């Protein structure tokens, strides 16, 4: 690999800029799957057009792979339709639950890290990967509580999911840092525990210090400790695609690109 494969999350506020076909310095885009599954309007047209010029990853927030009430078949059908249209190079979602029964919470809710959860998640991933006919990536989520009866560390749980299901991880380094701070573990131990070939993509983002906990807001620049953890990973894993997410107080596209390209500069310091 001759360069760092850096992308940014596609957000509606940047549609006018992107549609004007400016010179874009990042290499790829990630689109939130659900924002394009029920539309044939402008968002769909923008994504379709963008796909002609850039690789696109589809990143879901509502698959609810850890839901005890199962994964929605109608959701998967819509996702498959979108995948067939966009032909993304990555399809990902989160290792969490977001609905129970027929009620959606539209949130990334934490799972107890137990054998029961592991078995259910692996079965669901197996089903979804078979249905979609491709391997998926699952992201580690930020959390503000854990369960006393969890029997795995988060990194051991993730590794078991990968080992048993054949999926890969979308490693969100900001989420590792937020969880390490909130739940008092060593984030570097987490990073070091995950083998390179388990990691299919990296997310970078900013969090907010709420005083009593760290909150995963995606509302600001990536913090220095998170960049430090990125250093640790990228020096041993140069080929992993890296993506910057920004979802609140979204800056201009130029500022977003500049922040994302810091990842490439760091990459170059090791591999350039």
């Amino acid at each position, binding site marked *: 690999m001759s360069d760092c494969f850096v992308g940014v999350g596609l957000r509606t506020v940047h549609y006018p800029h992107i549609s004007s076909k400016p010179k874009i310095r990042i290499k790829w885009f990630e689109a939130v799957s*659900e*924002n394009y*599954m*029920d*539309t*044939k*309007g*402008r*968002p*769909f*047209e923008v994504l379709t057009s963008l796909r002609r010029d850039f690789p696109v990853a589809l990143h879901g927030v*509502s698959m609810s792979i*850890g*839901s*005890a*009430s199962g994964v*929605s078949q109608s*959701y998967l059908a819509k996702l498959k339709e979108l995948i067939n249209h966009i032909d993304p190079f990555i399809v990902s979602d989160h290792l969490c*639950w*977001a*609905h*129970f*029964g*027929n*009620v*959606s*919470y*539209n*949130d990334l*809710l934490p*799972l*107890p890290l*137990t054998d*029961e*959860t592991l078995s*259910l998640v692996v079965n669901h991933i197996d089903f979804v990967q078979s249905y979609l006919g491709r391997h998926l990536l699952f992201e580690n989520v930020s*959390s*503000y*509580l*854990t*369960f*006393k*009866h969890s029997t795995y560390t988060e990194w051991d749980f993730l590794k078991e999911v990968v080992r048993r299901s054949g999926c890969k991880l979308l490693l969100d380094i900001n989420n590792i840092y937020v*969880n390490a*701070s*909130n*739940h008092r573990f060593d984030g570097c131990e987490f990073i070091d525990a995950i083998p390179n070939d388990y990691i299919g993509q990296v997310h970078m983002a900013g969090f907010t210090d*709420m005083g*009593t*906990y*760290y*909150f995963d807001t995606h509302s600001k620049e990536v913090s220095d400790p998170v960049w430090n953890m990125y250093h640790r990973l990228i020096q041993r894993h140069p080929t992993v695609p890296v993506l910057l997410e920004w979802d609140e107080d979204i800056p201009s596209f130029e500022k977003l690109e500049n922040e994302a390209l810091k990842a490439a500069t760091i990459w170059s310091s090791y591999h350039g």
Partner: protein
Amino acid sequence: MDNLSLKEIQEAFSHMIYQKDQEKKFIASIEPGGTLSREEAIGVYQRAYKARFTEALGETFESVWWVVGDPQFFELAEGYIYSHASHVYNLSSYGAEFPQFLEKNKLTQTYPFLSDLATFEWSFKELFHTEDTQGIDAEGLAQMAEDGSLIFRFKKAFHLFSSPYDVFTIWGQRKNKNKEHAHINWKEKTSLMIYKYQKEMHIKKLKEYEYALLTLLYLGTPLAGALQRVSQEFHSLSPQNISDFFAFLFHARVIESIDK
């Protein structure tokens, strides 16, 4: 203490997020993050739930928010959120029953147009996400003159809207931070067609006879029958009025096909 199963955890967590119950066994089963108490840790998810759905409603019903202001909109949103669970995976699809919810709210005494305004905003959002198709152009006009039994099929990206209130003018002011709705004469009937032309959203104010004619055609009334009924109701209607209106319809390409 027996550990909660995954299903029991998700059931209890759901109740807690939805602020239905205090699930003591669930609370006892968690370790809070940071320096939060257990209740505060759950509160993070409860607040995020409310904020997320309030934001979703605010994005779709921007002009309702503009009319009632922050405190009343947040109160409305809270009332709706905790009485209407989400069954959609896409947040922007949340709020389908908000117009009906508003109908029953006491705020309609102050703002009788509020539910209609919300209906308009929901329709606009729905149409925004609808695929635009080409529609028949002016050649259709020539075909139309030959046969009164024609039935028009309108394209998906077309919607008729009518209200006893001028919700269109209110909606048009929604981004105006310096103006209040009190300055708008909303006590005026409005009929609109919302449609896409060349993939862009358009809204046209309709005259009463135009709305009546379009409604009949939209419902599948054959052309001659629709024209006859509208001519009986609107005596001053001239052939030129009709001709001009059809010229516009074909220019706007809102008719998908014509059946005989």
